């Protein structure tokens, strides 16, 4: 699965093979302690008994996973049936995150490409322009976004004054609002990796394609896209995965009438429920799911790589 973003390109070489261990050591040591250790701890927690109002009791229990997959009725004593509640929440989150990723790609790719084809000395300025809005706190940006999208907000006023629409479009508290919010939250995470890849693209390839009478769009699809694929994949991962766990945009723009994964898990640790093992178990399911998705991406990519 390393392929996800690491092995796609053709320029994987072994120049620094001997120094490999030293080069990887800082990342390994930081992440083993600060990422893998916490994850391992949560894996253990997910198999422990919950302590009422947060915390765990050190006794083995499958209750958290049972709660995730089986429904035993309101009072917990009906015969178990498959629990669709959490699976539905997961499916909804995947769908929203996927839509946001596609939206980001459709806007982010042309933007990244455009920036990468500007004169060399102004490119960093463009990159700053894309990231500056993110110096402002996400909460403030999302509240302002909400202000813009309101039924009586500036966007609807503008569209109505131009005569494009006669009734305000209702966006707030819809799925579209959530997707727009996620898209807005993570757009630079799509643009920058693609930019980094396109900037390196050898335009002689496009010229060669044009010489062979390929039109521009065929060239884009058959020559450019395969060449910058690692950037596109990296961008998609950086938008999709954080979107899965996001809660601010879904809550503020989507109305929070339906849980997303992020708010569901958050509620287990700092909400009324205070069910740490269940929060840990839901995180483990999420982690497994993301790993599988990355694996499928990697497989497809390496397959495609062999065909080319």
């Amino acid at each position, binding site marked *: 699965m*390393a392929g996800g*973003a*690491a092995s796609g*390109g053709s*320029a*994987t070489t072994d*120049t*620094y093979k001997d120094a*490999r261990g030293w080069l*990887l050591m*800082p*990342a*390994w040591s930081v*992440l083993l302690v*600060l990422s893998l*250790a*916490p*994850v391992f*701890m*949560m894996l253990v927690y997910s198999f422990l008994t919950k302590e009422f109002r947060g915390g765990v009791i050190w006794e083995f229990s499958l209750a958290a996973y049972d709660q995730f997959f089986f429904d035993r009725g309101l009072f917990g004593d009906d015969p178990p049936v498959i629990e669709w509640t959490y699976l539905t929440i997961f499916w909804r989150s995947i769908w929203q995150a996927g839509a946001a990723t596609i939206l980001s790609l459709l*806007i982010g790719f*042309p*933007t990244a490409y*455009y*920036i990468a084809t500007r004169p060399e*000395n102004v490119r960093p300025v463009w990159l*700053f322009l*894309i*990231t500056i*809005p993110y*110096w402002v*706190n*996400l*909460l*403030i*940006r999302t509240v302002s*976004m909400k*202000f*813009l999208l309101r039924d009586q907000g*500036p966007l609807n006023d503008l569209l109505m004054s131009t005569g494009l629409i006669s009734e305000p479009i209702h966006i707030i508290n819809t799925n579209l609002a959530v997707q727009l919010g996620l898209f*807005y939250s993570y*757009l630079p*995470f799509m*643009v920058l990796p693609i930019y*980094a*890849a396109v*900037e390196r693209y050898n335009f*002689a390839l496009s*010229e060669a394609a044009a010489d062979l009478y390929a039109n521009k769009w065929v060239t884009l699809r058959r020559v450019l896209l395969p060449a*910058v694929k*690692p950037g596109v994949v990296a961008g998609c991962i*950086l938008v999709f*995965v954080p979107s899965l*766990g996001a809660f601010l945009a879904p809550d503020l723009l989507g109305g929070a009438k339906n849980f997303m994964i992020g708010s569901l*898990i*958050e509620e287990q640790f700092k909400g009324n429920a205070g069910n740490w093992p269940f*929060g840990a178990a839901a995180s483990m399911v*999420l982690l497994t799911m993301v*790993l599988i998705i*990355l694996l499928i991406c990697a497989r497809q990519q390496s397959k495609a790589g062999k065909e080319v």
Partner: protein
Amino acid sequence: MATPGNDIKSYPGFRFITIACLIILYAPLVVVTIYSFNASKSITVWEGLSLHWYADVFTGPDSGKFKLAARNSFVIAIIAASVSTAIATLAATAMVRGGQFKLRTVSFGLISLPLMVPEIVTAVATLIFFNAIGFDRGLMTILVAHIAFCIPFAYLPISARMQGIEDTYEQAAMDLYATKRQAFTKILMPLMMPGIISGFLLAFIVSLDDFIITNFVKGAGVETLPTAIFGSVKQGIKPNIMAISTMLLGLSIVMVTISYFVSKTDNTK
């Protein structure tokens, strides 16, 4: 740099989408800027122009806290982004230029791990971990947690870039008796710069805006801007936060303008 025919490079509609993209990014900030000048306490109803909230930021009762929070945020973001970018660059070199090796898949999984785990889980687990090893919470705990969290955000653009660079340049340099270290610092690094800048910028904004993890691992008396802003929701969002945001924007735009003119004078290539 040789420029092949511009018509090959440009696609119709791409400029339009880029401009649309900038409008989308900046439209909410226009709202923020406008309401920072609001005379009333409201961020919803406009009641006239005033500089009241700017004065409040500098002289108001909480001005000290916000100033300190802003300084903490920037110090942490700059250090965390620099360190994680350095770590990510080394890791990417090993992953992309290190040939095939057994732990490659595992390494990639490990590097992406902070992305995949919900932040709240990292937050609670890290806090328990810090308490268990007796690491006093403060600026240092935030910094360490941010470094780990920022690594995948720095790594992905950097490795994407490196995959696009053929190793012929380094090979050529080494054929001319450059050492590996020289090939790395003199050839690969300059070629890597766009990727490294991208990675640094992403890590920087991730650190600057992080709330959940910071909120759990910070110690007494240490606020960052996000924790200060989320915390003040108890009293409602006031235009003073809009004023702080606008000043941050102003500052960053000044920095970009300076860097633009600096790069213009350096236009010898």
